[in-house]
């Protein structure tokens, strides 16, 4: 392992290793820190934050599905003020690399959030979550349309200033994810996060009603991994120079390696942390071993390798 260069880059920022948390699956880091030091991670991607505190949806918010789960949290969070006051200082104090994920109801809200972040030091990148499926109106999922995706990214780009890398988090629930990726790349993103959850639904056959209070929820877990691999592969093929943070059902080093081969420059661990708080650490170690076994001396040589070997 000593011979392996495990570092990776997103835009102008370098990360010591490619294993991140996935937004919404690690809260703001404190909960997991009891189980391992957050400095082990390439970065902590915080739960998508909005301008105001938000209670989120009613319960039940969760339904376990075969090799996966539906969640319907509805972006519960403390709002940007409390987040910047409490969570960011704590993460900095604990020497974590930080990627802040933001979410808005309007194009303007994303701009407001970006402006709040421009003055904050200690952040390595901003993830723009334009693909949360748990909103009242499906039309509000910005990443379902190239135009709305562009509008949000332009708003963030205008307001954030400086060189903080912007990462757009996209939904796989679209006909052509490459077209959406093109729109946000043209609008100036430095990287992409692929994929958010897929919209799903479970009906309880005892009560004969939807299991979730919000009726629909985002499907995550190993069940969606092939969808993630496909999306990353397609987008990397079209834009080989745009870094992709891959995510979707990664629970082992093998899974992470699969996403890297498809074209991911980093891999986020999401739902796997629910079942196993040390999943990210385990994935990191297993991936390093696998890369070494396969003869890679530099992690970056493995990114998109599946394209080269076809």
């Amino acid at each position, binding site marked *: 392992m000593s011979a392996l260069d495990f570092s990776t880059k997103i835009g102008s920022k370098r990360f010591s290793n490619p294993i991140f948390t996935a937004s*919404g*699956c*690690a*809260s703001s880091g*404190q*909960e*997991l820190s*009891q*189980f391992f030091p957050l400095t082990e991670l390439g970065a902590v991607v915080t*739960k998508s934050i909005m301008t105001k*505190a938000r*209670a*989120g*949806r*009613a*319960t*039940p*918010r*969760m339904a*376990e599905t*075969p*090799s*996966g*789960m539906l*969640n319907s*949290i509805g972006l*519960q969070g403390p709002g940007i003020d409390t987040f910047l006051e409490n969570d960011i200082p704590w993460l900095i104090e604990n020497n974590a690399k930080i990627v802040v994920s933001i979410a808005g109801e309007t194009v303007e809200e994303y701009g407001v959030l970006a402006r709040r972040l421009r003055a904050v030091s200690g952040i390595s990148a901003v993830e723009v979550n334009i693909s949360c499926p748990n909103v009242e109106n499906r039309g509000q999922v910005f990443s379902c349309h190239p135009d709305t995706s562009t509008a949000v990214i332009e708003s963030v780009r205008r307001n954030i200033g400086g060189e903080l890398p912007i990462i757009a988090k996209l939904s796989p629930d679209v006909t052509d994810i490459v077209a959406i990726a093109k729109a946000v790349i043209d609008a100036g993103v430095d990287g992409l996060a692929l994929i958010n959850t897929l919209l799903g639904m479970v009906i309880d056959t005892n009560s004969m009603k939807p299991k979730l*209070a919000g009726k629909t929820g985002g499907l995550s*877990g*190993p069940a969606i991994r092939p969808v993630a691999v496909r999306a990353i592969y397609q987008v990397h093929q079209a834009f080989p120079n745009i870094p992709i943070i891959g995510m979707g059902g990664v*629970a082992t080093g093998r899974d992470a390696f699969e996403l890297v081969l498809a074209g991911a420059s980093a891999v986020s661990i999401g*739902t*796997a*942390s*629910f*079942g*196993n*708080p*040390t999943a990210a650490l385990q994935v990191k170690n297993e991936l390093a071993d696998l890369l070494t076994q396969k003869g890679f001396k530099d992690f970056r040589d493995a990114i998109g390798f599946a394209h080269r070997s076809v």
Partner: protein
Amino acid sequence: MITPQKINKNAAQIKSEVLSNKKVGPYHHMVFAVGEMAAHSKPGNFVAISVGGEQSALILRRAFAVYRAIDKGPMGGTIELVVAPHGQGSKWLCAQNVGEYVDLIGPLGTSFGIPTTNANTMLIGGGYGSAPLFALAEVLKNRGCRVDMVLGASTANKIYAPLEGKRSVSSLTLTTDDGTAGIHGQISEAIPRLIRELGTEVIYSCGPMGMLSAIAKIAEEFDIAHQCAVEEAMACGIGVCMTCVVPVKFNDGIKMVRTCIDGPVMDGSEIIWDRKTVLDKL
């Protein structure tokens, strides 16, 4: 109620050996070797266990209230659980043999608060929800409290009341929905009369949400303290997934509070039990 202290303090993830697995009526009483974890576990805490084995399609942990934790027993530190095999995960756990290992995280969550003076306490448990109340009874008795226990279930064999658990109890009342044991009717129907007769000053409850809600109402009417251990479906048990929340009243409105971090033991008077109120306000 929101604790600023370190989240998941004392929690550890371990491979834990199954030391005993006995069927007790419709439930399983299971003992796990947990080493030092037992010393940190207090009545009300829970553990989260991986189920289904490595290749399982069940990706989420299952949460179980600790029935009893013994710090330095003949088998070292142990934690005991009472498991009802009603879902895929709990069925898998109940099928684990002595000598097998499970991935266990604990202790998690809040524990029952103990009165500083010797109060008259009533411990109310529904079904296997009675499990954490026996260890609580012991602590309360040692503190000089009077402990009256009321256990209810749909039918007689679903009441979990082991002999050793009853040692610390001054009185035990049973209720069953079908009248096969004790008082015929729902547990909450029997409570007001018992509170008057026994001079109850503090209520502790554990069981299904409907029962807790009914008890919260009674506690409010009698104006007595009520600590309840709530049951919301959890995905992680460690505070990252935000699924196990209950609505709680705050000065600036309703907040959804995680029952794995700020629960499972919560102040019954702070929880908003009426779902409709919450749905209207969210």
